[in-house]
């Protein structure tokens, strides 16, 4: 490339020297062609990557957005005193004796009178009509009555969830053909649903309970939400942040600034890098053995989950912190030491503040990684029907059984009712929003505060 004449002499087939430099010879053409090809490969590779991303995102969005909407039915329920409070003394203990099953006829008769008012002829019995509602409706009604015993005897209007099959019909997932063998719902009930929809009392609406609510059993997918699992994830991240950041930063400052360079520190260094590559399930087994079986911490608790994820995140934080400490030029340290600062002062007053953006970025990326982790949680009992109690306080948040967002998604994807599948995708959307936000914050921090030397 450097010497045109030399290269042309080396190849016997080269054109004579008199040829213009502006005219390309065969070798230049070949090299240029290779370069063009390489660029093309690069573009193809990026294109494939982008295509995958687009396919993934469209898939997630189309499959998951349905979970954010739910079908509701407006209903005026007469809270009949003779059913709910037989003794008539409004004693809360007596009212509590009526179980959720006792509320089902109340709802069915409310629906019957509503249907009469709307002038709908369905030919269904009140019980069959009541079946289009979610089982969660009974619980909602009972909770309302217990919270407001004074309302007994009055007619109160409610917005109830409908059953997952009816919701699936409203969303186009269930059709008259697909329920041919289904025992849960009949074609007549779907006709009834159509009539209610035309009357405007049955409609689809945004469902905040999916984002803030608790998990629900296999029988009522329509009522399941990811809120409590989100809290579980949050408490785990607190534990990770409170433990992994100080320990990781302290370890890397010592290794980078104070520790002598010898075989021992080399071994430690290699092992930290190895630790970063250990599969996360291994940390789960470790957590089960150490934290639960040996230390007797409670199972399924976010505290234990956080401890396990701390072990997983530590190497990531140590590696990124060391890299950002290394990036601070030695002249800063020398200058500080030169004006009489102790080594510790030099590190904490000058080096650490300059390395802080890098440390924070590494920490956020480590946290994002921990947030999306499921495998270790399987072993410490955070997968199952768990996220059904919202923790009542900070200590309970750490110690009472809870799930985590990815564990909840995994659990939903295993359940039989297809409606849970939609919720699993909805959960993925929420989880992805968290991850993208965290990574964006990391990028912004790096852009804004990182100094190049």
């Amino acid at each position, binding site marked *: 490339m450097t010497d045109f004449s030399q290269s042309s002499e080396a190849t016997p087939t080269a054109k004579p020297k008199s040829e213009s430099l502006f005219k390309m010879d065969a070798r230049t053409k070949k090299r240029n062609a290779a370069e063009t090809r390489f660029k093309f490969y690069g573009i193809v590779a990026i294109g494939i990557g982008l295509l995958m991303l687009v396919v993934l995102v469209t898939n997630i969005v189309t499959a998951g957005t349905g979970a954010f909407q739910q079908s509701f039915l407006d209903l005026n329920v007469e809270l009949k005193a003779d059913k709910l409070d037989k003794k008539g003394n409004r004693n809360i203990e007596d009212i509590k004796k009526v179980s959720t099953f006792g509320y089902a006829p109340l709802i069915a008769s409310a629906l019957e009178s509503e249907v009469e008012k709307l002038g709908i002829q369905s030919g269904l019995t009140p019980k069959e009509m009541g079946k289009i509602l979610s089982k969660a409706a009974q619980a909602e009604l009972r909770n309302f009555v217990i919270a407001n015993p004074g309302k007994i005897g009055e007619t109160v209007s409610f917005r109830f969830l409908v059953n997952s099959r009816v919701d699936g019909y409203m969303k186009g997932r269930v059709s008259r053909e697909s*329920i041919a063998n289904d025992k849960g719902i009949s074609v007549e009930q779907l006709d009834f649903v159509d009539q209610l929809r035309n009357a405007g009392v049955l409609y689809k609406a945004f469902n905040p309970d999916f984002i803030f609510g608790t998990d629900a059993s*296999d029988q009522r997918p329509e009522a399941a939400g990811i809120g409590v699992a989100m809290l579980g994830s949050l408490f785990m991240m607190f*534990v990770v942040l*409170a433990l992994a950041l100080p320990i990781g930063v302290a370890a890397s400052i010592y290794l980078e600034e104070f520790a002598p360079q010898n075989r021992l520190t080399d071994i430690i260094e290699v092992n930290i890098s190895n630790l970063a590559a250990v599969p996360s399930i291994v940390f789960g087994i470790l957590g089960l053995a150490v934290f639960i079986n040996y230390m007797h911490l409670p*199972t399924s608790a976010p*505290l234990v989950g956080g401890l396990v994820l701390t072990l997983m995140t530590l190497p990531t934080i140590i590696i990124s912190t060391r890299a950002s400490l290394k990036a601070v030029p030695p002249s800063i340290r020398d200058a500080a030491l030169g004006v009489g600062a102790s080594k510790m002062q030099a590190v904490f007053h000058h080096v650490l503040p300059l390395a802080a953006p890098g440390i924070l970025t590494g920490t956020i990326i480590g946290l994002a990684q921990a947030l999306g982790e499921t495998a270790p949680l399987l072993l410490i009992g955070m997968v199952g029907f768990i996220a*059904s109690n919202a923790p009542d306080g900070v200590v309970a948040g750490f110690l009472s059984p809870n799930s985590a967002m990815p564990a909840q998604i995994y659990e939903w994807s*295993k359940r*039989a009712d297809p409606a849970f599948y939609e919720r699993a995708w909805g959960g993925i959307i929420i989880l992805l929003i968290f991850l993208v936000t965290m990574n964006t914050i990391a990028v912004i921090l790096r852009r804004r505060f990182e100094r190049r030397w």
Partner: protein
Amino acid sequence: MSFVKLSASALAIAAVSATTATARDQVQVAGSSTVLPYASIVAEAFGENFDFPTPVVESGGSSAGLKRFCEGVGENTIDVANASRQIREKEIKACADAGVTDIIEVQIGYDGIVFASDINGNSFEFTPEDWYNALSAQIVVDGQLVDNPNKTWADVNPAFPAQPIAAFIPGTKHGTREVFEDKVILAGCEHLGDFDAYLAAAEGDNDKAKKKAAEKACIALRTDGVSVDIDGDYTETLARIDSNKDGIGVFGLAFYENNTDKLQVATMSGIVPSTESIATGEYPVSRPLFFYVKKAHIGVIPGLKEYAEFFVADEIAGPDGPLAEYGLVSDPELVKVQEAVANETVLGGGS
């Protein structure tokens, strides 16, 4: 310096809270993934109707659940183990070794196991013999034990279409596998008379050992890829059938009933599986479901006895309860079960 303070206070909080963690106030359940949906329905209703918090139900399989159950007595061990099979002698012994002596066995009802294929594919009417001939490692042809030569269902039974055999059956960690082996493969093997051929070929010191070896040979499944073990859940089996339209999978009745738009069910010995045909015993492939309660925890863990009683109450486990609606076949002798729970009758007699 604030890092140091932060981490010190975090550790202190962790330590303090760990010591206050001794009083657990919710029931903890683990075990069979078949029982999990029922247990979660009960747990949810229990949390709604009682002042106790909703119990925590984990899955993981019958064996894993019973293993955790038998780890010992105390707040850090589970209170209830769900199982899709009866507890084994070995497990009772392991429990006793760890100090778990008084175990209350509760049978909640029956669960049917169904064979289902893609909704648009061929329909089948199976007998246990068909499944034995399709999946056993060795079958008897002309009086000789030979490696299973059948490639399509038509080879198994001329009445079937020539569809390649592709079976997705539960892996060995599932309790369902045991039922499949016992009630389908072994039944087919014995019914065909192949059992005698195995018995003749079996090695053993005495008749009992020979019989055991023959049974084992009966239920040994072929390993040439025709039968695929699914270690995950039924959703995985469903996904497999989705991608291989020739596949036939083993499901729980409740799972099938939730996915009737994608699956068609095969009859067994001419009987269509349903809660009714299973309750009457006509449909042959069913098994009882259980949960086991640690008696030592009753009175210590608030709500444990109430949970057990609520689980088998008529309004829950009865023929019109939510469990039956979801696919559980109600136990006709539920009254006896309720009595046993109320009296805290433990395994092996005594109270």
